[in-house]
């Protein structure tokens, strides 16, 4: 009976460890402008990620709108959860930079300089946007490994690097995420 319980427990642990489809290593260069997607060079090692907010309700809501958009358009294969700052080091904040030209930015940080150990998404609160929801979803796309695309024939994709307004995670980008993960 004890042997059976032990085996069951070990099987459970193995299931947890191997079922999360985690890629803990950065991948080599993938994708291209002509393919409609580019791998950004690193990605969060898991489809689920957590964050705390260090921003106002307005900016948090804008981020959450983008979060909902990305989650639903990805078929809920990727999920973000807000947590207490005592539980995670990833965060969302806003920053006032009138001399900056960017509307929002994403950073990956690491101690060993190769794999990201945490991320940050930051909104520039001195700017206006055509669609903050799309901006937020776009930045989330970077967390999961998608780079900006800039050719005009990619201007309709979520990962087009300029805030032209509402855009959607399209089939090519969804397939790209599955390739990465």
């Amino acid at each position, binding site marked *: 009976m004890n042997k059976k319980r032990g085996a069951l427990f070990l099987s459970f642990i193995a299931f947890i460890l191997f079922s999360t489809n985690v890629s803990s290593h950065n991948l080599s260069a993938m994708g291209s402008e002509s393919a409609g997607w580019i791998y*950004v*060079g*690193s990605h969060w090692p898991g489809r689920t990620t957590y964050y*705390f*907010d*260090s921003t106002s309700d307005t900016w948090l809501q804008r981020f959450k709108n983008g979060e909902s958009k990305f989650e639903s358009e990805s078929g809920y294969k990727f999920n973000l959860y807000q947590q*207490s*700052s*005592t539980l995670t*080091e990833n*965060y969302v*904040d806003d*920053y006032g*930079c*009138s*001399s*900056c*030209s*960017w*509307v*929002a*930015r*994403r*950073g*990956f*940080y*690491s*101690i060993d*300089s*190769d794999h*990201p*150990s*945490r991320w*940050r998404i930051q909104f520039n609160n001195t*700017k*206006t*946007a*055509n669609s903050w929801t799309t*901006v937020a979803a*776009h*930045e989330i796309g*970077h967390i999961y490994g998608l*780079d*900006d695309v*800039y*050719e*005009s024939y990619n*201007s309709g994709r979520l990962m*087009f*690097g*300029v*805030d*032209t*307004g509402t855009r959607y995670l399209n089939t090519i980008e969804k397939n790209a995420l599955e390739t990465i993960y």
Partner: protein
Amino acid sequence: MRKNKKAFWGLAVFGFGLSITLYFAEDSSPHGNSLTEEQIAEAKEAELEKRVATGEEIEISTDAIFPFLTEAELYAEADLVVLGTVSSLLHEYMIDTDVPFSEFSFTVDKYLKSNKNYNSSKKELNITQDGNTLSEFESYPLLEIGKQYVLFLKIHSEEDSEKLLIVGGPNGRYDIENGYMKQIGNLHQLNGISIDKFLTHIERKLTE
């Protein structure tokens, strides 16, 4: 033996429950004032920024999304429109730990739009761009020394200083490659036209 087992598992569950309760309990100072989640988050953010500032942690990649300006908006927002060449990198720096900038010296060949302070008498301009060699936006690369550009610039006054900024990042920057224009994202559908045609286009737009 069964009673001992029951007692053991009962204690284990109690201990686990107690641990969870204590883990999620609010912090309290010796004076009995609890920190709010907002205060804790601010402190955490400051701690993380300090790690980057001290080099304990490094930024391994960064991306940004830039605004979109129509041509009309670009021309309206620009104080200066110049054709010229980047001559040197003057200075690169961070503000607030990790907001990167570079300042370039730019030799002006032609002013297409100017004002009383910036005109044909001023041949060298100092231009500020987002990003630097420590933290370069991958999709908005730094200006290259020796390369020719048409730049739409706005005068940005801050306290005691004045900067010339490229309007809307990629919106206000046109690279010249082998005599033809190239803009990141081809935002205004002018990629591939010759520099002469582009200058004529600008002059027409400025008179509209």
